[in-house]
């Protein structure tokens, strides 16, 4: 069964830029896929369209076999609950506590906002938040303000928030791009461990080809809004990857 299905998705911005040109791929449940491509290749646009932050100009997207392409906000909400996201810049509420940030992961489960706030959360939610923080190794920092943590720790808090949400499909948009190599690797290892342990599906945008080769079972490469590479790690060579990133430049150098 497919967790995610992208059919001929095209995205044209109001200024006429074609960011995605008839992109299609399917991701099976439990698959770990890395999406690669240089800046402007359409990766982030693809991410935003799957996440529902933008609507495709043409084509359709299915999450757990349900079409989300033209869903309104309220109908998308229950699907969002199953879609966990990790962002490049963590997107924590930086002036609130780590614990509070993790509690917010449960927002989709409660109609009353107060149920996910530190003073009013149920004992169950409070315990769940602590165990999510323990899982990412930050339980001892629960009471700290989020912006007092290092970049790597903040990304781990964001992962704990995502764990709190208990999703099925993870979308990660360059989760290690703003971290140093060591912290980046630790975050990637943690994220992948959790994803494997829970058998979640993951679509992760990355820039680092070496990390992509190490973690992704399958790699999809985008160039100028089109899929130019799609296959399991075993079938993709380093040359394929370097072509994906340097192809244009090489051609320019030769001309």
């Amino acid at each position, binding site marked *: 069964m497919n967790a995610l299905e992208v059919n001929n998705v095209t995205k044209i911005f109001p200024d006429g830029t074609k960011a995605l040109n008839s992109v299609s791929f399917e991701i099976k449940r439990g698959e770990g896929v890395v999406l690669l491509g240089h800046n402007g290749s359409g990766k982030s646009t693809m991410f935003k369209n799957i*996440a529902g*932050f933008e609507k495709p100009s043409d084509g359709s997207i299915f999450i757990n076999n349900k079409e989300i392409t033209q869903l309104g906000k309220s109908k998308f*909400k*229950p699907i*969002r*609950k199953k*879609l*966990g*996201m990790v*962002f490049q*810049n963590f*997107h*924590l*509420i*930086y*002036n*609130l506590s780590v614990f509070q940030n993790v509690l*917010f*992961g*449960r*927002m*989709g*489960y409660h*109609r009353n*906002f107060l149920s*996910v706030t530190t003073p009013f959360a149920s004992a169950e939610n409070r315990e769940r938040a602590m165990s999510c923080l323990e899982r990412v190794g930050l339980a001892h920092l629960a009471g700290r303000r989020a912006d007092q943590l290092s970049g790597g720790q903040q990304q781990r808090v*964001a992962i704990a*928030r995502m764990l709190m*949400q208990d999703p099925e499909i993870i979308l990660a948009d360059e989760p290690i791009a703003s971290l140093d190599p060591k912290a980046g690797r630790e975050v990637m290892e943690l994220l992948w461990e959790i994803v494997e342990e829970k058998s979640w599906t993951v679509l992760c945008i990355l820039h680092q080809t070496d990390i992509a080769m190490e973690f992704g079972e399958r790699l999809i490469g985008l160039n100028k809004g089109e899929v130019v590479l799609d296959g399991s790690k075993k079938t993709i060579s380093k040359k394929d990857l370097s072509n994906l990133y340097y192809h244009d430049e090489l051609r320019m150098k030769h001309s």
Partner: protein
Amino acid sequence: MNQHTSMPPRFKLPKLPAIFLLVIFTFLFIMGIQHAQLSFERIINGIINMLHFIGSAFPPNPERITSISSAMYETFQIALVGTVIGVVLSLPVALLASHNTAPHPSIRWISRGAVSAMRTIPDLIWALIFVISVGLGPLAGILTIIVDTIGFCARFFSERIEEIEKGPSQALQSTGASQIGIVSGAVLPLGFPSFVGTSLFAFEKSIRSAVVLGLVGAGGIGVELSTAFTMRNFDEALMIIVLILVVVILFEQLSSSIRKKII
């Protein structure tokens, strides 16, 4: 390389509209100076009168210090009550007036229009309107400060709300949060330090306004000040001015130290 490269000039000639505006501005400025009927004689007379005032005002007269102090206390209360209610009302108004939180563009335009009207009409005019509606006294003053505070705070709150980074809101949206959840969980906490800073500024501003409001009968120390001037009790007037100065400066210091701690 067939691209044209040229060094940018040191100075750029101003554009025609800019020159046009400058001419109009200069003309109005000169007309304004003429209109004030500035003359050497008037300036000298003014200085003499000022010295005369200072001479008869010194030393400040503390005879009526108890009634002056209680009027100052009333002014402080008008400012406090008006600002607190104004700040509380400003939050929902600001949310309705910001493009990223307004439920519909038409609601945003209506709220923005209302806020602009509150800000554009000066507080003394609001005070006159409220004195007519609810009668002389502190209530008219409080209502004036409320309107004034909404005009000030709702605008700055809304500017801050519109500046707030999209990311954290998207992160909460991605957990399946409702619009109320996103606003309460991301927008309000992220804007909070700025809201507090703006509110403290609003309170400083309110104390200064509340002082003047008494001049039109909206309660507080202004009545005392206006009476002292009319009766030509300049020493008492100076006492009142000193008291106002002390209270305003004290609060400004306090508010700037709170602001530093929060932001």
